[in-house]
C-alpha cells in the first residue's frame, strides 16, 4: 500500500519539478536573447563613434563597409589632442565643471544640513521649493537669463556674456536643487542619537557637520558630486546661448560648432571629439557605477 502511494506521488512531483526548471531555463534563454538585442541597440552609437574615430577621411568617404576599420589610424586623436583649440575646449569644460561641483557642494551641504535637522520658519516650504526648482528645465530660463546677463553687463560694465565664467553662475541652478534634495534624504536618515551624543560632548554645529554628518553620509556626497559633475559636463543649451567666441566655448558646444565647417563634416574628427568628450563621465561611471546609480534612484524618494 505504502509503496503504491509513493509510486503514484513520486513521478508527478518529479515531472512538475522538471517542467518548472525547464520553464526557468527557457525564461533565462529568452532574457539573454532580448538583452543581447537591447545591448546592441544601446551600444551601437558609442561603438560606431569608436569605429569612425579610427578611420582616415579617405576611408570614411570611400564606399566600404562602415562597420569595419580596414586601415586603423590614430591620426584623428593625434590631431585633436595637439590642437590648441580642442585642448582649450577641454580645459574650459574641466574648469567649469570642477568649480561648479565645489560651489554646489558649498551651497547644498549646509542647506541640506539645516533643512534635515533644524526646524525653522518656512523650512518645509523651502524643501518643497528646492524640489520644484529641480523640476524647472533649462530650456525655460535661457532667454530671460540671457537678457538678464546683458542688462547686468550694461549697468555695471562687467562683461558676462561670451565669457566662460558666466557658466559658473548659471550651472548651479541645475545642480544645487537636486544635490540639496538628495543630501536632505541622506542626512535625515542619520540617527538623531548620533548628533545628540556629539552635542553632549560639546561639539558645535560645524563640528557635528564635519565630524559626523559628512563622514556618515559620504556615499550620498559622492553620488551628489558625480551628479553635479556629469550635469555640468553635459550641459549644452546654456553655453550655446551665453558663449560664442571660440576660446570661450566648452566641449559640447565647441565640437558641434567648430568641427562642422559650413556643409563639410569632418566625421572622423567629430566622432573622435565626441568620444573624448564622453570619456570623463564614462570613466567616472566605470569606476563608481554604484554611486552613480544610487544618485539616480535617490531623486525620487523623499528624505
Amino acid at each position, binding site marked *: 500500500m505504502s509503496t503504491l502511494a509513493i509510486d503514484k506521488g513520486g513521478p508527478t512531483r518529479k515531472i512538475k519539478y522538471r517542467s518548472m526548471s525547464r520553464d526557468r531555463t527557457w*525564461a*533565462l534563454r*529568452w*532574457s*539573454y536573447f*532580448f*538583452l543581447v538585442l537591447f*545591448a546592441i541597440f*544601446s*551600444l551601437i*552609437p*558609442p561603438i560606431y*563613434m569608436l569605429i569612425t574615430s579610427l578611420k582616415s577621411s579617405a576611408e570614411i*568617404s570611400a564606399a566600404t*563597409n*562602415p*562597420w569595419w576599420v580596414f586601415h586603423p589610424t590614430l591620426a584623428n586623436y593625434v590631431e585633436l589632442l595637439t590642437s590648441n583649440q580642442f585642448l582649450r575646449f577641454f580645459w574650459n569644460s574641466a574648469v567649469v565643471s570642477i568649480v561648479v561641483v565645489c560651489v554646489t557642494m558649498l*551651497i547644498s551641504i*549646509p*542647506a541640506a*544640513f*539645516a533643512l534635515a535637522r*533644524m526646524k525653522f520658519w518656512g*523650512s518645509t516650504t*523651502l524643501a518643497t521649493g528646492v524640489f520644484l526648482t529641480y*523640476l524647472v*528645465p*533649462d*530650456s*525655460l*530660463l535661457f*532667454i*530671460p*537669463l*540671457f*537678457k538678464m546677463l546683458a542688462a547686468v553687463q550694461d549697468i555695471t560694465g562687467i562683461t558676462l556674456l561670451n565669457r566662460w565664467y558666466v557658466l559658473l*553662475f*548659471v550651472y548651479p*541652478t541645475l545642480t*544645487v536643487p537636486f544635490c*540639496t534634495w538628495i543630501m536632505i534624504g541622506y542626512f535625515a536618515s542619520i540617527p538623531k542619537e548620533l548628533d545628540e551624543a556629539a552635542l553632549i560632548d560639546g561639539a558645535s554645529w560645524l563640528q557635528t557637520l564635519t565630524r559626523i554628518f559628512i563622514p556618515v553620509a559620504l556615499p550620498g556626497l559622492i553620488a551628489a558630486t558625480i551628479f553635479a559633475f*556629469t550635469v555640468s*559636463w*553635459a550641459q*549644452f*543649451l546654456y553655453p*550655446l546661448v551665453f558663449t560664442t567666441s571660440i576660446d570661450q566655448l566648452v566641449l*559640447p*558646444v565647441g565640437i*558641434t560648432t567648430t568641427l562642422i565647417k559650413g556643409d563639410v563634416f569632418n*566625421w572622423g574628427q567629430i566622432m573622435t571629439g565626441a568620444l573624448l568628450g*564622453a570619456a570623463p*563621465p564614462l570613466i567616472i*561611471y566605470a569606476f563608481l557605477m554604484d554611486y552613480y546609480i544610487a544618485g*539616480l*534612484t535617490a*531623486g*525620487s*524618494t*523623499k528624505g
Partner: protein
Amino acid sequence: MAFFLTLPLILLIALFVLYPAFYSMHLATLNKSMQKFVALGNFTFLFKRDTFWMVVRQSCIFALTAVFFKALMGFIVAHFVHNLPAKGQRKWRGMLLVPWVIPPAMSTLAWLWLFDPSYSAFNYTLSFFGVGPIPWLGDTFWARFSVILVNVWYGAPFFMIMYLAALKSVPDQLYEAAAIDGANWWQRIWYVTLPMMRNIIAITTLFSLIVTFANFDIVRILTSGGPLDSTHLFATWAFQVGIQSSDIPLGACVSLFMVPILAVAAIFILRDVNKRGNEA
C-alpha cells in the same frame, strides 16, 4: 543660524530661477525692440501662426510617444535583467545604462552620423535586406521618427534603472503566494508587480515627461527643427526665434507655453514623492 546656512541656496534660487521666471513673463509682453508694452500682443501673434500650432502638436506627440516607449522598453528590459542570476546582473546593468551616461550632445552627434544622407551606416545595413535608402532626417515623417528614436535610446536606461530598483523591493513572498494561487506570468505582472511599482512608475514617467517635453539637445543637433520646422519643439523653436532671430520677447513667449504642462506634471510628482516619503 539655520537661516544663514540656507541663505546661499535661497539667494541662488531667487536670483537665477525665480527672478528670471518672472522676468520672462515681463519680457513676453514687450515688442521686439523691447521698448513698448504690447500686453498679450505676442501671444495673439503666435496664435495666428501655423508654425506655432505645429510646434505645439509636435511637442506633444514627441513627448508622449517618447515617454511611452521609454517606459515600455525600460519595463521590459528591467524584467529581463531581474530574471538573470544575481551575479550577472551588474554587468548587464552597466552596459545598458551607457546611453544615459554619455552627454546627449555627444551621442546625438553619433546618431547624426549614423543617419547621414549619403554615408548612413543604417542604410548600408538595410540595403542587404532590400530596404531603403531611408531619408532619416530629410523627410518629415522619418525626421520625427528619428528624433523620437534617439530620445528613446537616451532615456530608456533611466526607466530601466528605476524599475529595476523597484522590482528588487517587491517581496518574493508575494510572487510565491501568487504562484501557489496558480497565477500565470501575465497575472503576476498585472496583479503583483504593477500595483507594487505604481508609485515609482508614476514618478519616473512624470519626471521624464517634463524632461522630454523641455528637450533641446537632441532636436537641435539632429535636425535644428527641420525639415520645414516639422521637428521643432518649444525649446528649439524658442531658441531659433529668441536667440538666432533675436526676437527675445517672442522667444520668451514661446518658452512660457511649456509652463502649464510642466506645472501639472510637477504637482503630481510632488504629491507622489510626498506619499512615498510617508510610506517609508
